[in-house]
């Protein structure tokens, strides 16, 4: 399937708006387009809020949507409705923070994928494919099992450092290998192998079975036990990332034909590259340190956004943010319910959806060349 400038959803909507406007008078059309964009963004936010609300009701303990609403209103200081303490704890201390972190992870990882794919000019680029998540695992294991760096760093700190190291390594390899756009994915494969091997080595040689279980669960991506400080950290980082990316939308468009063309269009290429790559690295490292290695969200969601809304980054980026958040909230809800009361690691769910899409993309790429 090939999609042009707008993508099917936007085409249908603008066509409807053109008819509604009754003429092709330019300024009128422009306004209606802005209106559509506003409606789409608003719709996305409402859908996200509803999804979070519904996702909270799901789980081993049933909580009705009405109760969820009451509990949220109570905590926001808008009402004082009597609710059961146990339900209040489940919703406010457990499920809501979890759903919000899921949304932030989906939005953030999608954003990272969108930036990497454009900047590195490779449709297969994403933090997971580039070995960033493997690096985080190695970092976490090194701290958690070997006790490197003492207790100050913790599992999350180790993951953060590991992710940054792996990301730097991949970019350096790709830079010096000069393999064009495929070089970076090859470097990612090498890095993934290296860090997985290191992780296995440490686990095999040093970990006891309890430690191994804990780390394994985390390696697959896990949103268990999210707290409000996790929510604050993840939403802040993703929020900053989103603002920078929306502001850089046109700049990212200019990278479509590579750095030379971008430079000739007046883009400060080196500065842009460094800014956006550092942003991606920090964003990924933070999210991985909170929720573990959640794969394929960054790969798949930007492509879904492009298929629906066309190629321009002024559309791709907001669409990726909203779709990513929606996707993760539902995958997380599904993985909580699927084998209840045993929760499935959320990374398993994302990979089960992600791998087939990855294969489709590969096939499509081959068909083109």
């Amino acid at each position, binding site marked *: 399937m090939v999609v042009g400038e707008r993508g099917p959803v936007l085409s249908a909507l603008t066509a409807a708006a053109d008819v509604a406007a009754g003429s092709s008078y330019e300024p009128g059309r422009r306004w209606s387009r802005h209106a559509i964009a506003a409606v789409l963004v608003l719709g996305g936010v409402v859908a996200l809020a509803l999804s979070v609300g519904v996702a909270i009701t799901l789980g081993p303990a049933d909580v009705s949507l009405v109760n969820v609403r009451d509990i949220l209103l109570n905590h926001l200081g808008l009402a004082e409705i009597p609710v059961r303490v146990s339900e209040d704890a489940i919703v406010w201390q457990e499920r809501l923070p979890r759903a919000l972190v899921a949304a932030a992870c989906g939005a953030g990882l999608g954003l990272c994928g969108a930036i990497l794919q454009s900047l590195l*000019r490779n449709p297969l680029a994403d933090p997971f494919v580039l070995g960033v998540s493997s690096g985080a695992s190695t970092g976490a294991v090194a701290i958690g099992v070997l006790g490197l760096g003492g207790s100050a760093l913790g599992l999350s700190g180790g993951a953060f450092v590991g992710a940054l190291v792996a990301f730097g390594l991949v970019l350096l390899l790709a830079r010096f290998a000069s393999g064009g756009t495929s070089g970076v994915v090859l470097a990612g494969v090498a890095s993934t192998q290296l860090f997985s091997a290191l992780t296995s080595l440490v686990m095999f040689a040093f970990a006891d079975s309890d430690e191994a279980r804990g780390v394994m669960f985390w390696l697959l991506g896990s949103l268990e036990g999210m707290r409000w400080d996790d929510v604050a950290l993840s939403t802040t980082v993703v929020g900053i990332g989103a603002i920078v990316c929306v502001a850089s939308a046109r700049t990212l468009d200019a990278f479509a034909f590579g750095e030379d063309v971008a430079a000739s269009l007046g883009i400060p290429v080196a500065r842009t590259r460094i800014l956006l790559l550092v942003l991606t690295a920090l964003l990924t490292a933070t999210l991985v340190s909170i929720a573990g290695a959640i794969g394929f969200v960054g790969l798949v969601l930007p492509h879904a956004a492009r298929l629906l809304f066309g190629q321009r980054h002024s559309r791709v980026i907001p669409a990726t943010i909203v779709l990513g958040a929606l996707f993760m909230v539902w995958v997380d809800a599904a993985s909580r319910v699927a084998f209840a009361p045993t929760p499935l690691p959320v990374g398993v769910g994302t990979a089960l959806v992600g791998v087939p899409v990855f294969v489709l993309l590969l096939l499509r790429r081959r068909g083109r060349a």
Partner: protein
Amino acid sequence: MTLEAQRLSWRRGGTLVVDGVTLRPEPGSTVGLLGPNGSGKSSLLRLLQGMSRPDSGTVMLDGVDLAQLHRREVARAVASVTQHADTDVDIVVRDVVRLGRTPHRSAFGGELARDERIIAEALEHVGLTAKADRLWHTLSGGERQRVHIARALAQEPRELLLDEPTNHLDIRHQLELLELVAALPVTAVVALHDLNLAAMFCDTVVVLRRGRVVAAGTPAEVLTSELIAEVYGVRAHVTCDDHSGRPTVVFRTGLPQRVAAR
């Protein structure tokens, strides 16, 4: 005032690829850069665009050193079409041309209607209006080249730098494209392989060999069988076309005398 190069030298991987080149194109003229493969045509164009910095010498835009200017300011005056600029993105022709508006945009959008008009005109110029909504990867090599030129035109440049723009084009499109470039109210610097095309469309030609300028002037002054023998190492017979008054090069088999003697 326009874009000019003063005693440019550039070392790339240990080799001097541009060696003391001075270039002062007449505003509005079309300048052909000639020379065999590896003579430094593409490197010189990179320096003129400010994509790379020379080791010595300066490129001046309206009397200001290019190194002192923001890329954006340069991009509003100088547009370039490089070789092998390709993409995997599912982008339509109109959006490729729209990229040319990038240096003219402010953070808050700008004049959309004017942008659309300029994009439409650029497409009209290269004869691709009918294919404006086609996807990039469905186009032929020649069409892609013309899209890039339309993108460069949408930059509204005063200077246009083209690196072998006639590659991949059939003869009709080669002639149309160079006719278009020569007629544009911009100063164009065009790297070319085809000496006859250069003779037909360029006001002046500059011949490079191992990074140095070996000859410069009107095509009639520069394109002689002696120079072609010396620079390209081939035998050629140059006549003057009665109709246009421009030189025509006919190649002969065998090596020229001086090369054969070496």
